[in-house]
């Protein structure tokens, strides 16, 4: 995972350096180590935030988990809030990487099943961090913006997966249906199915599948 992020960062730097110098891209070793330290601190934060959700871990706990000093943490992040924001961005990259769109051209049942199972796994994995983010967003516009961004990304995925059915609706009907679908497959909705209703993963997926199938209009013949 760290390697993936380092590779991505290095890739970005390579792309940038290509613009500035025509020579082959060279990666500064010290800078790469610093990026790697940052990644390890972010990963330590994410692990602790997941374990302690919704409490925010302290700088000392993060430093200890990452194997660095508290000073190292604050050399790279001016405060815990900056670290939180960086960690959310890091998690967003992972969510995108781990949940690519599949079966977008499948039949109705395949598309519903694919979307529901993928969403269920995403909720399962990210629930503690999501709760921590929502509870601790406070007055931070950066964190709030990321929450909205995550919701928009989910709506984008729903639009992609259910494009044939949504295309049969008027603009306002379409907007309203997306609002309802987003509420249905919310992370907390998933959590309630398991914690409150006591459903297993498969049962929770079945509940969402049944609801989405009822909510979507008939699939047009061309799809």
């Amino acid at each position, binding site marked *: 995972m760290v390697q993936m992020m380092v590779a991505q960062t290095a890739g970005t730097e390579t792309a940038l350096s290509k613009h500035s110098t025509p020579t082959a891209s060279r990666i500064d070793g010290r800078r790469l180590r610093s990026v790697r330290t940052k990644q390890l601190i972010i990963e330590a934060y994410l692990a602790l935030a997941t374990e302690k*959700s*919704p409490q925010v871990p302290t700088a000392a706990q993060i430093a200890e988990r990452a194997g660095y000093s508290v000073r190292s943490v604050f050399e790279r992040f001016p405060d815990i809030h900056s670290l939180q924001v960086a960690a959310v961005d890091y998690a967003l990259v992972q969510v995108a990487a781990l949940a690519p769109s599949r079966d977008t051209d499948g039949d109705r049942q395949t598309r519903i099943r694919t979307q529901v199972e993928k969403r269920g796994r995403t909720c399962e994995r990210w629930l503690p961090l999501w709760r921590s983010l929502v*509870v601790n967003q*406070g*007055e931070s516009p950066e964190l709030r913006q990321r929450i*909205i961004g995550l*919701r928009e990304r989910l709506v984008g995925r729903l639009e992609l997966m259910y494009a044939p059915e949504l295309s049969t609706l008027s603009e306002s*009907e379409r907007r*309203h*249906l997306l*609002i*309802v679908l*987003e*509420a*249905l497959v*919310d992370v*907390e*909705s998933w959590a*309630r*199915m398991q914690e*409150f*209703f006591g*459903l297993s993963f498969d049962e929770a997926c*079945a*509940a*969402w599948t*049944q*609801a989405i199938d*009822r*909510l979507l209009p008939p699939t047009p013949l061309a799809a």
Partner: protein
Amino acid sequence: MQSIQFVSPTLQPIYLILVVRPPPKFCSFLCENLQVHVEASGSIGRNDSAVSTPLSPKPARIDGRRLRSERTKQLIIEAYLALLRENPVVAMPTAAQIADRAGYSVRSIFERFPDLGKLRVAAADYNLAQAAALAPARNVDGDRATRIRSQVETRAGTCERGVALWRVLLASVADDEELKLRVRISRDRTIERMEVMYRPELSTLAEQERKYMLVALEAITDIESWERMREQHGLSFEEACSVWIGAIDRMLPPTPPAA
């Protein structure tokens, strides 16, 4: 002024003191209903039906001093809730702020609530009692469209009034068993209400399908879903109701001919 005694989840009585005021625009129909409910209802406990039923014809006798003390408690709770609505990012205002808003001393607060966590729990009980008083089941025997509209508008009124406290409850629930119980009761009541309102349609489904249907209806009409429609999507009260009405109508199976 009229008082109603409720049985709280912890079996401590809660007095909800109701003062008749001009109804707010958005829930005038609920407030019209309030008078009927006040006259008809006795106590509402967690195991009672969502539909209020008349109890003894003799009204309960309430000790005057106790009523005044309960009224002070209620004003402190209302001050806390008002501060939450004004500044939702501050989950717990200071005791001095609450006292100042309620018009009492800080000491008065701690005489009634040993700590602010207990005040939060009392506020949750107050909201549950208020929801039961202001949102009785209506039109239970109406046609499909009437029942859906009635349930949605009642639920929307509850969400609109309760969203500020709900955010605080969710943020604190992980560490507080008392709050966890209140959150559970609130969800149980929402589901019970839907079972009452959509009985004809739900009766046509197999047990598992029925369970999944209630799970989905609860998710769609969750208080956070309401909050997002209003705050993030900028929908008016009526528009948001219409989104829920459309969704529930699509979700529910056809109404059997007998209903």
